[in-house]
């Protein structure tokens, strides 16, 4: 594509592309995100592409391989426009029927439609499905429309018009004012007002300034940044360009996790395309504004999500945080003023500029504006990425969108905000998803990971899980985090392995308090949160582990016993053959028995049993 020398040329290109595409009657959008690729969507893409060529439909039908649609559980997912027909769990063998029936004849294939596990009803269009219906998909909906590897798609969809608006007559101060009055707060976890960050960075002394996009999504259980960067990389580039214009930076970095190969690939392609079109580099769109970006791959360290550690890592050093007496907006990367924002924060910028701050501020709650993408996972029916207006109650997300618990179990809690967040019990589900309301309740919005837990999840084990994670990820620079997390884990391990003593709970609380007050960086300060929140809401579980030496959820290996329910066992011998420790005995068609002395509690029998006869108590 040739270089664009002015905003007018970009506009003409958009019009020309739209005209060219008028001959396209049908668009088949297949999800090519990581989730769907795990369910072999590439084979479906190839099969549909072959079938379209075979039928000679290459010119009238556009096959668009998009980023994540959010409903990963049902992947591979296909949407066919016009009609918004939604097919899920598609296999390559369905390609012929999809092309022949739906694309050519406009008929809907009943068996590929989504069937709601709650009501058993099937839905024809994406918009009708309960999972999508209750959402407000501002950023994610763009994911379904564009091919992340095509700048043309992004331009046709109206991309880069926020940039032209800014370059065409908005002063940097005006941009910052707009972001400030929109009420946008950092989506990475802290919820710091973005506009304030930008204006502090603009006012900081120095000619050389940097913008950074934090795509080092180390929070286990959250993947919205991956999804946005992978599915719509030009949106991030555009957001960063506007930010760079506002603060006066000429150079930007995208720090992306190397565990997300597709996000790395797509952002590199987008970078090259933007360069070719003159949207990056010197004199962007013929204006005096020059800006360039570098894509850096992270080394896989959770602590690098912390701003100062991330900057150290960008400089090629070990990712250790430093005290933030002077903020990074003044003294950041290479000791220059630096603005670091999360992927989702950058993604919100173009639409705020285009639609105005009052449009953005009209969504959300009093202190938290706009929408938030949540990764809804765990023991729930519909898992995937969900985007809702801030202030939406947890209830709505877990039950209306998520469809409630699986296999008739009872939902016990939801863990929000990753390792720095906390667990909230069911009776707190009326709380809104809002920065301030959640931190008051001992949790946080964080990056937006929501892991749903049911009666088979042990809350002490969850606390142990996060402490293990944090102990492993602690960089070891400051003592409270290095030693404190270690000792807390030691105590919790004692409790889960049956060596717990009643006085240990008090000690744990005291230790958690000390670590949270004295650690150097955000990772250490928030490390005790999983302990705090589980102790606050699920203390009886700790007490059961300590006093009765029982794990009520049946998770902690040292405190449980496997047992076969004779009423349910049909004597099919599957568990007997599967047991590697020869702990199961019994005759064919008669109830089997587990020898608890030999049993290793590996869980094979339980996962193989088709009759739910193997119990844990």
């Amino acid at each position, binding site marked *: 594509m040739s270089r664009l020398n002015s905003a007018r040329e970009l506009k003409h290109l958009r019009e020309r592309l739209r005209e060219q595409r008028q001959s396209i009657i049908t668009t088949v959008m297949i999800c090519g995100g990581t*989730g769907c690729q795990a369910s072999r969507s590439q084979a479906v893409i190839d099969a549909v592409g072959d079938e379209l060529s075979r039928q000679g439909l290459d010119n009238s039908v556009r096959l668009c391989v998009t980023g994540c649609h959010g409903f990963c559980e049902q992947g591979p997912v296909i949407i066919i426009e016009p009609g918004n027909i939604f097919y899920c769990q598609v296999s390559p063998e369905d390609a012929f029927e999809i092309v022949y029936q739906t694309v050519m004849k406009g008929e809907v294939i009943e068996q590929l439609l989504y069937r709601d596990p709650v009501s058993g009803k099937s839905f024809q269009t994406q918009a009708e499905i309960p999972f999508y219906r209750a959402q407000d998909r501002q950023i994610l909906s763009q994911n379904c429309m564009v091919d992340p590897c095509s700048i043309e798609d992004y331009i046709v969809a109206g991309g880069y018009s926020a940039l032209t608006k800014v370059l065409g007559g908005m002063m940097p101060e005006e941009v910052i004012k707009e972001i400030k009055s929109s009420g946008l707060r950092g989506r990475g976890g802290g919820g710091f007002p973005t506009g304030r960050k930008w204006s502090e960075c603009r006012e900081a002394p120095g000619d050389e300034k940097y913008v950074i996009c934090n795509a080092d999504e180390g929070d286990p259980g959250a993947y919205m940044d991956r999804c946005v960067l992978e599915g719509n990389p030009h949106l991030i580039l555009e957001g960063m360009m506007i930010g760079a214009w506002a603060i006066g930076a000429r150079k930007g970095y995208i720090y992306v996790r190397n565990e997300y190969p597709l996000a790395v690939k797509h952002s590199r392609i987008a970078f090259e395309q933007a360069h070719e079109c003159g949207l990056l580099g010197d004199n962007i769109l013929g204006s005096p504004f020059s800006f360039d970006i570098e894509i850096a791959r992270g080394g896989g360290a959770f602590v690098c999500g912390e701003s100062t550690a991330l900057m150290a890592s960008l400089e090629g050093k070990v990712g250790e945080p430093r005290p933030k007496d002077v903020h990074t907006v003044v003294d950041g990367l290479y000791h220059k003023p630096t603005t670091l924002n999360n992927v989702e924060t950058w993604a919100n910028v173009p639409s705020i500029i285009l639609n105005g701050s009052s449009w953005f501020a009209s969504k959300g709650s009093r202190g938290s504006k706009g929408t938030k993408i949540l990764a809804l996972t765990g023991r729930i029916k519909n898992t995937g990425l969900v985007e809702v207006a801030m202030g939406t109650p947890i209830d709505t997300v877990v039950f209306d969108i998520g469809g409630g618990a699986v296999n008739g179990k009872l939902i016990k809690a939801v863990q929000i905000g990753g390792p720095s967040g906390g667990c909230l019990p069911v009776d707190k589900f009326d709380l809104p998803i809002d920065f301030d309301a959640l931190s008051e309740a001992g949790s946080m919005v964080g990056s937006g990971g929501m892991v749903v837990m049911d009666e088979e999840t042990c809350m002490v084990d969850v606390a142990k899980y996060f402490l293990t994670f944090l102990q492993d990820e602690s960089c070891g620079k400051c003592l409270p985090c290095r030693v404190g997390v270690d000792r807390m884990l030691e105590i919790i391990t004692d409790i889960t392995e049956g060596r717990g003593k009643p006085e240990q709970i008090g000690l744990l609380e005291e230790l958690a308090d000390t670590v949270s007050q004295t650690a150097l960086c955000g990772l250490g300060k928030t490390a005790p949160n999983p302990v705090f929140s589980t102790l606050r809401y699920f203390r009886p579980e700790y007490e059961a582990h300590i006093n009765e030496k029982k794990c009520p959820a049946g998770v902690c290996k040292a405190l449980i016993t496997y047992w076969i329910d004779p009423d349910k066992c049909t004597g099919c011998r599957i568990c007997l053959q599967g047991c590697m420790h020869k702990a199961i005995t019994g005759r064919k068609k008669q109830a089997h028995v587990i020898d608890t002395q030999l049993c290793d509690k590996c869980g094979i029998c339980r996962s193989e049993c088709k009759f739910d006869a193997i119990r844990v108590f």
Partner: protein
Amino acid sequence: MHFFRIHIVEFIRYFKSSQADSRLEEVNMPPQTLDQILEGRRSQPNQLIEVLQDIQKNYGYISKEAMQAVSQGLGVPVIEVYRVASFYKAFRLKPFGKYVLTVCMGTACHVRSARLLLDQAIGQLGVKPGEVTPDGLFSIERVNCLGACAMGPIVVENRSYHHHMTPGKLRKLIETLRRQKTEENQNV
């Protein structure tokens, strides 16, 4: 993994050990040589992580020789290269096995019993995460999140994703891989 105080002793031991990386030859000819990776990045210390990423990608691990070459190429002391290479999870100092079983231990996978999968892999193969079986066939890796949370628990075998895994399915997967190898040997 605390690296604040560099484990000088460990560092010296590592560099002094004479154990040759015998399986280096087994790695297929890498598409990029060390020189090619360093090209255009010489004397730029800030490129250290990027260079190590490329070495890891091409060779599967960071060898002593590679560390020394990087140190000279970028103008960074070897001890700093070692420090960075051992700090980040992305880098390995030893080669992988033929089949790499990566068990996702993210929160979403954890609440769906990923721990049982890791125990199963350790029990079956007799090695810990990060180690390779003596026959060089398997290695186990644990990863904090692969971002495919909705499909969990996830086990990745080399590049293929296995979703909704159970201990039973994992056991069968390992058996299949073992059989594959035996058949390959017979064919040779």
